[in-house]
């Protein structure tokens, strides 16, 4: 029986890998996700056949309640709220790892009240990975809840900073590791485990609060990686290779996305790992605001310009999603396409609030995915483009990233919108972006600034063009 169960787990792991492989193309991605779900179903069903399971009451309650909540979340969530949703899911993943690891400790201890340690011969590696599983799982749990609260607006998005923050975090981590080592040497010290969980819970909070709302894509990806790592550690504790394989896959995925995001946001991973993210913000605010004038254009001027454009590249930013203007923007694009213009979308890696977020938001608005081009694919095309239409984006098109060495943006890869023949910017105000850096682009001669809410401006453009 055991052999059969382990073989079934192997089938599940293979299905997960195949599923992820099919995610490499939008044509096969949906099938890949289904394969993953089948793999999970197999894993759950064969586990229920395990002889160790005697009572199904609590299992049934858990399956129904958890499945029901998951179903509800998946059906109800708005696409703009995907980052929070994924953040929350990361948290539950981490929390589950912690709980499983602790329950396993109680089983190993041989005494449910934990008063006596009767667990003989538990090897060091099981105990060590148990500590890691609790530590990583709990940090993921509380860290994700904070990330969720920030993204959902329950908590202010601004970084919360205090003196010696990094040092205190480092000290807490060190303390948890020392307690962990002591615990491995004497596994009857269950109180140490509780303290480790408590420290990890605090550490999750204190390592996410200094990070600004705009940097959440990095945090969410990193916590994604942690949740996978926690599952892998739990796999070590239970000597379950299915958990190890799957957890590691997720850990790798989160890690890759984290480094992509870091690169696109111009930060190093080390800077993120130890609470450095968002610190630059205060420096950015000192930027002197000398009075410069911009030329304001009306939507009618902009419509005239678009009417005569042969090629248009739209650069959407998060401001677009905030204004819920994706649908009307697609209407605008359709009108332009039907008039014979080439219209494409240029997607910066950090457009939106998590990796790939903007693509989902536009797909929801019925934009075909072949029109969504990533930065490297489209950046050379701007110079042959009549109009670059920027909606709700700022830092990702700020030329200071190329030239101004003192800028926090310096070195960040940006979309070359200023190489287009005309640059059109739809924006509420001249306020600087998240990095606090004034954008020279707005003051350039060939830039048309159209002020207003993205939705009303684009609606206006559509109305004028329809006439």
């Amino acid at each position, binding site marked *: 029986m055991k052999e059969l169960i382990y073989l079934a787990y192997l089938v599940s792991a293979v299905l997960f*890998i195949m*599923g*992820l492989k099919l995610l490499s193309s*939008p044509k096969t991605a949906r099938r*890949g*996700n289904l394969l*993953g779900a089948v793999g*999970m179903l197999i*894993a759950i069903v064969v*586990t229920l056949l395990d002889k*160790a*399971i005697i009572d199904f009451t*609590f*299992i049934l309650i*858990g*399956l129904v*309640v*958890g*499945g029901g*909540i*998951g179903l509800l979340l998946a059906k109800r969530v708005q696409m703009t709220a*995907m980052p929070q*949703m994924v953040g929350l899911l990361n948290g539950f*993943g981490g929390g589950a790892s912690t709980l*499983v690891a602790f*329950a396993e400790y*109680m089983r190993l201890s041989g005494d*449910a009240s934990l008063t006596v340690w009767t667990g003989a011969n538990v090897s060091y*590696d099981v105990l060590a990975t148990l500590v890691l599983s609790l530590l990583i799982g709990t940090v993921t749990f509380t860290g994700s809840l904070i990330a969720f609260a920030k993204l959902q607006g329950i908590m202010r998005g601004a970084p919360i900073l205090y003196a010696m923050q990094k040092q205190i975090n480092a000290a807490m981590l060190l303390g948890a590791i020392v307690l962990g080592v002591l615990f491995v040497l004497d596994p009857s010290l269950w109180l140490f485990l509780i303290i480790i969980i408590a420290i990890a819970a605090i550490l999750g909070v204190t390592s996410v609060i200094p990070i600004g709302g705009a940097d959440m894509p990095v945090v*969410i990806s990193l916590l994604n990686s942690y949740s*996978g790592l926690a599952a892998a550690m739990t*796999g*070590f504790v*239970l000597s*379950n*290779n*299915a*958990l*190890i394989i799957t957890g*590691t*896959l997720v*850990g*790798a*995925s989160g890690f890759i*996305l984290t480094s992509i995001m870091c690169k696109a946001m111009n930060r190093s991973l080390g800077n993120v790992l130890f609470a450095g993210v968002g610190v630059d913000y205060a420096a950015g605010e000192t930027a002197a605001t000398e009075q410069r004038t911009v030329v304001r254009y009306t939507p009618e001027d902009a419509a005239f310009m678009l009417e005569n454009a042969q090629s248009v590249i739209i650069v959407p930013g998060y401001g677009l999603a905030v204004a819920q203007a994706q*649908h*009307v923007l697609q*209407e605008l694009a*359709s*009108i332009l*396409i*039907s008039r014979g213009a080439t219209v494409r979308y240029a*997607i910066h890696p950090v457009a939106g609030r*998590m990796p*790939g977020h903007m*693509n989902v938001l536009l797909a929801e608005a019925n934009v*075909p*995915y*072949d029109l969504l081009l990533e930065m490297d694919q489209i950046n050379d095309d701007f110079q042959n483009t009549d109009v670059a239409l920027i909606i709700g984006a700022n830092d990702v098109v700020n030329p200071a990233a190329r030239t101004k060495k003192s800028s926090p943006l310096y070195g960040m890869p940006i979309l070359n919108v200023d190489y287009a023949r005309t640059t059109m910017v739809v924006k509420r105000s001249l306020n600087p972006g998240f990095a606090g850096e004034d954008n020279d682009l707005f003051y350039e001669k060939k830039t048309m600034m159209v002020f207003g809410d993205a939705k009303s401006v684009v*609606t206006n453009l559509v109305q004028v063009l329809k006439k």
Partner: protein
Amino acid sequence: MTETLMVSIYVFVLAAFVGFEVISKVPPLLHTPLMSGSNAISGITVVGSLIAAGEGHGGLSVILGMIAVIFAMINVVGGFMVTDRMLGMFKQDTSKSKQIKKAE
């Protein structure tokens, strides 16, 4: 160092390589579904939690196991379903134009 541990470490390292190989091929277009989908499969901890919840001696560990089942199932069901919902929205350009849709 036990033999099981050695095997586990082999599995861990090899899985990391497979992970990097497979996931670096996912285009940025699909990074959000990748995250929610990988979230769903990280709900594999459900396997461990089912055993903990079903041991039957009614202690604290059973309750912890049940909460773990709930957490992991939120991950599994929520993750797979929301990923499916998202991927269902990704469509190719079939009719090069004429798909003007009324915004609400």
